[in-house]
């Protein structure tokens, strides 16, 4: 290929255009950098410094105190439990969605999106009203004779788990459904034509193909649970102390920025580590962000 006389000018013009296009990204990048990245970096530095400005690991060492380890334990227990229930409920629902006619699919889709779009506080409030001592669930349980005394369903671990499951379920269903529609049904048919029972073709052909979607949902729900604040704070009634609440208290009650920063940094590192490992192993990214 012979270079024309104006090749240099063309290349310069193209570089200039790319720079111009790149400038379009700068307002967004600048805003996020200043409002989010800058103060997070600041807190990161703060978590390693004493009040006098010296270097220290004291804020991290303090996290081994039972008061903090208890909140980590509660957080992980709740997150595991909620993720497991979400997977158990989300998989059948997404599967049903992928199997029914377009009209039914649309109806299930709307019923998954409706809570997704409803205010988090509204849904939390609804559970507070339903689960309280004289609430609908207890009234119903007593009238049908299942229990004699009203159960303690709210302002404790149980209520928090129920509310969190309700809020996290759409995050499980959407990536699962995306994975299921991507499965080529001819594989399933082929296994059936080769004599596999429906159960066998499901477990040996369909299920493994939807595993990336399931993992994406599991990771997304688990990570969101780890840093969840609003619902545990309301439905836990102060008795369920989560990681996020330790952070809030360090700032709002004790104004202890060193402790809050250290707790926040560890939460960030754990979150990013989970996302990174899962992304490395399974390319989870494709399914996340499909809101």
């Amino acid at each position: 290929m012979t270079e024309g006389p104006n090749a240099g000018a063309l290349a310069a013009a193209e570089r200039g255009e790319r720079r111009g296009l790149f400038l379009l990204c700068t307002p967004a990048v600048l805003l996020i950098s200043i409002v989010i990245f800058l103060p997070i970096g600041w807190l990161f530095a703060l978590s390693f410094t004493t009040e006098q400005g010296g270097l220290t690991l004291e804020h991290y060492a303090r996290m081994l105190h039972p008061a903090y380890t208890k909140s980590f334990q509660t957080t992980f227990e709740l997150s595991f439990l909620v993720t497991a229930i979400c997977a158990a409920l989300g998989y059948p629902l997404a599967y049903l969605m992928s199997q029914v006619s377009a009209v039914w699919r649309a109806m299930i889709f709307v019923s998954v999106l409706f809570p997704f779009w409803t205010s988090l506080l509204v849904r939390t409030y609804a559970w507070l009203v339903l689960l309280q001592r004289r609430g609908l669930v207890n009234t119903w349980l007593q009238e049908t004779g299942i229990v004699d005394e009203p159960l303690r369903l709210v302002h404790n671990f149980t209520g928090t788990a129920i509310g969190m499951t309700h809020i996290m379920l759409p995050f499980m269903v959407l990536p699962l459904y995306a994975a299921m529609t991507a499965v080529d049904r001819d594989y399933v048919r082929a296994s059936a034509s080769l004599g596999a029972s429906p159960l066998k073709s499901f477990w040996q052909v369909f299920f493994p193909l939807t595993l990336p979607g399931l993992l994406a949902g599991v990771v997304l729900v688990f990570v969101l649970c780890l840093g969840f604040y609003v619902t545990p704070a309301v439905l836990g009634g102060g008795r369920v102390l989560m990681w996020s609440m330790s952070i809030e208290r360090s700032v709002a009650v004790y104004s202890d920025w060193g402790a809050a920063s250290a707790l926040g940094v560890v939460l960030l590192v754990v979150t990013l580590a989970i996302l990174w490992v899962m992304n490395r192993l399974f390319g989870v990214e494709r399914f996340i962000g499909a809101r």
Partner: protein
Amino acid sequence: MADSAGVPIAPWRRLWLYALGVAIVLFLVLPTVIVVPMSFGNARFLRFPPQELSLRWYHAYLGSIEWRDATWISLKAAVATMLVATPLGVMAAYGLHASRLRMARLIETALIAPLILPLILVSIAIFFLYARLGLNNTVTGLVLAHCCLAMPFVFVTVLAALKGYDMNQERVARSLGASRFVAFITITLPQIRFSVFSGALLAFITSLDETVVALFISGGDAATLTRRMFTALRDEIDPTVAAISSLLIGVTLTLLALGLVFGDRRRAGRQP
């Protein structure tokens, strides 16, 4: 595909799946919906079904200056967030898509980061920053913070649309003498408008619904509706929240319907 099931299986053998599906759908929808009839109750303790219908809690809501001010702040912040976040998100998505830079991956990650970072950490970080800038308890500060949380939704939605759009159409327009800006406004934008609309709607909802950041950085005269609701729920169960919740559910249903009508129909229709 006529037979989408793939497996030849009799419908009655799947009854358990249908039953489970109905139960899960009810679990998803009912708890929220049940708040609406309850909000028309008269008693201090809300029951279902309500003993006596009344608008008591709606009057309580509309009659309270605090609740009204908070609603006004939330709406103002949500509209401003939508108006700032949408153009920023569209610009970033377009710039990133058209320039095909080597740094693109890094920028994309940076712009999606607010969706991945733990919200509680983001909240205390912004609170910490605003304390030094004097932006706590101001609507400006609230809008800037909400823009950071809402913009990624616009960015992701529009970027997805641009990836499915043939940029050659714009090149044709420019070869015929249109500037890049004119080509974008007249050729590209009309074709990705559904995604831009969806993104704007998501930005609005994100701001209206946001609680944790608002809990830290909005207070006094600039307290948002969600902040006041949160305090009302944590300290005592105030039935006024039921009335507000019902109104918010109405807003959600309206927006969801708008989204279904004007949103990205192309993409929705493509699902097999």
